[in-house]
């Protein structure tokens, strides 16, 4: 079976490291980018099974990147990683067809649940 790959786009190094470590536990190789435009280019070249996007980033925001990715590949599985956000932002994320919203701080159980649901879907 081919190696499973996940893309993590987040401007915070702490978060990139955490997600990489978690994802390794579930058999994913994590490829990380620290800004949205690089993230989109990498998405197109590696075709990851899972994509994790930070919502608030300099340059293009996570929501804009989500829209670009879904337009490019409607089948892409995208998880939006957020801090505390307003109900309004949450609505925008849902309208942009995110597959899941993961609010920080999250724990291993939450991430495992998401990965399992997406993998079995």
């Amino acid at each position, binding site marked *: 079976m081919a190696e499973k790959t996940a893309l993590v786009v987040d401007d*915070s190094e*702490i*978060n990139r*490291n*955490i997600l990489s*470590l*978690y994802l390794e536990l579930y058999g994913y190789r994590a490829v990380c980018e620290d800004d949205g435009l690089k993230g989109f280019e990498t998405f197109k070249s590696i075709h990851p099974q899972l994509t994790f996007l930070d919502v*608030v980033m300099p340059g293009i925001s996570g929501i804009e990147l989500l829209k670009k990715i879904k337009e490019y590949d409607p089948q892409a599985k995208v998880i939006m990683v957020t*801090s*505390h956000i*307003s*109900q*309004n932002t949450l609505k925008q994320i849902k309208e942009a067809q995110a597959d899941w919203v993961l609010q*920080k*701080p*999250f*724990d*291993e159980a939450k991430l495992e649940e998401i990965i399992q649901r997406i993998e079995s879907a």
Partner: protein
Amino acid sequence: MKLLFLEDNPGDVRLILLMLQEAPSKRFEIHHVKRLSEALPRLQEESFDAILSDLGLPDSQGLDTLIALREQAPFLPIVVLTGNDDEAMGVAAVQAGAQDYLVKGNITTDLLVKSLNFAVERKRGEQTILEERNRAAFFKDLLVHDINNINHGLLFHLKRLLKDDTLGEKQKEGVSTCLSLVEKIAQLITNVHLLSEIDKGDLNLEAVDFKSVLNACVEKVKQMFIQSKEVEIHQHLPEEPIFIRGNYLLDTVVTNILINAVKYNRQPVATIWVEAHALEDGRYYKVEFKDNGIGIPDSAKSAMFRKSERFNGDTSSGLGIGLTLVKKVVEGYGGKIWLEDRVKGDFTQGSNFVLLLPKA
């Protein structure tokens, strides 16, 4: 005071200039223009202390004049002149951001000078409020994004460390303590976020199933204390479903009340009785959370929900802002919350949090 004066009517120009020149207490340096199109470039190139402007000009009418001036000079105080008997336009202008208005035909030297002076001070006050609000928003963002990120990292690494079998009992205990402190920080950050959401005022109320929210919260709270405290929660609720007018924050309300009842409790088993019934007026459900905790003396009861006291520096009570949040949410629903003794007259027997929640 360096004043930009917009007026096209020669009679009004003469009158105002005369008044300002004869003002005994203040010197005015007046720069007069007749059109908005002359005023805008001047505002861009020079600095003024205030603007005095007729709203009806040859190239701009009514509030459009004010809006254009504000856009060009957002930090300058503006006093508008309105036509005879046009109070309504003056009020509309103040609502749209002017600091004051004067009705032509009723202007005296004293009134004009006073209005300009007040406008300058009022604008300064508005500016200060705006800056403070931005500062508060900046610190809130710092907390709910940046510090939350770091805290998330701490939580993650502490949890991993706790699973490390090479750690001795003593080290594990230390890591556990750190973890519970970091979890408290996480809760505090969540509450700050929710408070600011409520302050924005957009609650989007809908029908919420109280019983299912309560059941979920009961499970969550029991789970939370599973290692540290035995918890019993008895429910005495009517048979029929209870739908209240609320939103996703009802969970926060119930969780906070249950946690408080368990946390401030010295009995071997923390017991909570949740009771609810519809009031006869048909508008509210009365929901009571009674506990066998340490109780709260009458002198402290009303302060329990008061945010202002905590914001004045008294942060020693350790209650966080959970109850402030609870009260804000309940009141946002159009409900009420207060505190009674579980056994009337003897606070040491525990507390009773009473809520009136509007029916959906």
